[in-house]
């Protein structure tokens, strides 16, 4: 049998379905993803976006990969995270807030009631304030949590935000089936 005959038939590679979400974050990690610039074109040859703030699709369908920015500060964050975990084969915590709560977690030693009263009633410059109570608003959690407190996370991409370079390296490694490399300069906690 010739070498050529042993090669598998070329099958067009299916695009990976990718969902992204921004929970208790600042959207900076999504901005850093966009900072891969013209490589976005290459990336879109390999993936298609499912639920994401970039597509405005709200409910996550079955996906190969889920990228989550931000920690968990309210009940809706937890529901979104669980839906992502249920639908994504690989779930990635992206950025400082997803990894350890980040800036929002600085409220963790303050009682939620005190926090809301200061922000909406007694804080400097507040006049005729009231604590928002619309039933549509998700209830805040007592503390902000990192994602791995609630579901299994498969990969962690550190940084505030992770650099475009780190995101690109991570995604290309993962899509190519390699273990993502974390050399000096690509792991950053700030």
């Amino acid at each position: 049998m010739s070498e050529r005959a042993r090669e598998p038939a070329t099958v067009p590679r299916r695009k990976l379905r990718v969902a992204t979400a921004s929970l208790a974050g600042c959207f900076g990690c999504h901005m850093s993803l966009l900072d891969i610039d013209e490589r976005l074109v290459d990336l879109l040859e390999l993936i298609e976006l499912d639920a994401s703030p970039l597509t405005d699709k709200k409910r996550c369908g079955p996906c190969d990969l889920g990228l989550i920015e931000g920690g968990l500060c309210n009940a809706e964050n937890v529901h979104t995270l669980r839906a992502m975990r249920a639908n994504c084969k690989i779930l990635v915590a992206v950025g400082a807030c997803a990894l350890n709560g980040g800036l929002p977690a600085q409220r963790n030693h303050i009682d939620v009631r005190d926090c809301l009263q200061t922000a909406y009633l007694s804080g400097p410059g507040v006049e005729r304030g009231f604590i928002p109570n619309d039933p549509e608003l998700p209830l805040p959690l007592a503390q902000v949590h990192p994602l791995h407190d609630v579901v299994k996370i498969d990969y962690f991409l550190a940084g505030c935000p992770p650099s475009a370079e780190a995101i690109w390296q991570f995604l290309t490694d993962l899509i190519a089936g390699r273990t993502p490399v974390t050399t000096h300069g690509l792991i950053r906690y700030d």
Partner: protein
Amino acid sequence: MTDAPAPQTFQMDGHDVAFAPGQSIMTAALAAGRYIPHLCFHPEFTAHGSCKVCTVKVNGQPHASCTTPARAGDVIESDTDELTQLRLNLVQFLFTEGNHFCPSCEKSGGCTLQGVAYELGMTTEHFSPLFPDRPVDASHPDVLLDFNRCILCELCIRASAIHDQKHVFALSGRGITKHLIVNAESGRLADTALALSDKAMTVCPVGVILRKRQGFAVPIGQRPYDRQPISAVATAHPDPEDGHE
């Protein structure tokens, strides 16, 4: 007149490391350009081996390399998957026991805890964070104490007691409640003898003891561990712990 004796050596990760009498495994290894991750060790102070991050295996037995004397013929393992995992877990415990928010920390980029975590390839803190409530002490006109980042290495205690002869710092409590205190009846740093010129001002490996009005002086990209990993910095300089530049 006698000939100088041939230097004695031990073997570390398959390499011969020469040492002088009185050197620990840590000091001999660093002098030979071989980095062993460490937090509470500082070349200017007596080692006390409390953080255990520098644990190596000496002839198969785990020892803190900063307190174990170098001995001729010993076979030492340091750069192994098993020891890296052990060190990683210790560092992850430290991250989750305190409040280590690198993006808002003045010491970021020059922090030994952060540099060691990078060196160990830490991508996650793994454990559930404890988020302890540790108010800062901003009473001193020139110095801020941010207890959130303390890793109990005792370097400031040693520097203040031994070098500065002031005993400004101490540890109080036990176990998870152990914490850094200052030597003043009021408990406030402003009421201690601490001065900006003290050695204790320069040894903190993390962002606890900070000069006021000097934060973020070095731009991102030019800080000590932006340019090269801590293993390269520590083996290139005699005093790698001082991240202040």
